[in-house]
């Protein structure tokens, strides 16, 4: 009888908790299905701007993100901004490449759009470089937002 009470509530009574109670196996943190889906949604949002929100039926945000990134990339290439490549010589080139790559599929589109090459000897080309990098960073932010929303966090 004493053993039964001890099993039911180890913290009550005068008897100390015994080690005979079954110990649950340690829980190993695993990515649940929802987490995996959130990761896929974030990835989709990066690859095609706005897709992460569209998959969650956040249409306003999806359209806005797509339009914003598209317009910034179009202007960046139209103003002959620099589109960085992976074989950059220094840290700034690498950072620029990461920022540009943030536009997802638009990065490869931009490289094909800019037929005449960059011209950063004028202010317009410099602005174009910034517009392109901003589009990438903004899309990364949007993809992270879609990922958090898919995980169920307030968004």
């Amino acid at each position: 009888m004493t053993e039964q009470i001890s099993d039911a509530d180890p913290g009550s009574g005068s008897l100390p908790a015994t080690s005979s109670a079954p110990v649950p196996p340690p829980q190993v943190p695993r990515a649940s299905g929802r987490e995996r889906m959130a990761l896929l949604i974030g990835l989709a949002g990066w690859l095609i701007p706005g897709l992460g929100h569209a998959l969650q039926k956040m249409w306003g945000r999806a359209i806005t993100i797509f339009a914003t990134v598209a317009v910034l990339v179009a202007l960046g290439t139209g103003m002959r901004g620099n589109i960085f490549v992976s074989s950059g010589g220094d840290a700034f080139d690498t950072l620029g490449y990461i920022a540009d790559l943030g536009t997802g599929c638009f990065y490869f589109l931009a490289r094909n759009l800019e037929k005449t090459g960059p011209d950063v000897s004028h202010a317009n080309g410099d602005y174009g470089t910034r517009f392109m990098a901003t589009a990438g960073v903004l899309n990364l932010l949007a993809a992270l937002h879609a990922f958090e929303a898919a995980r169920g966090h307030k968004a």
Partner: protein
Amino acid sequence: MSDSSGIHLSHLQALLFFALIISVAFGFLSRRRWPDRIKYILWSFMLFLLVGFGIAWAMYPFSR
């Protein structure tokens, strides 16, 4: 604004355009309700312009 060598924006046009488009994106991302979004967009747009003009004036003595 656009010719064969690309799109040309003045400094002011670039500032206005950048401030507007980023404010709209931030407004849509960070707020759910339309009145909140509009308020956020206007507030963010004004702050972009304020900071932009502030930095421009701060740099004015060194520009020549």
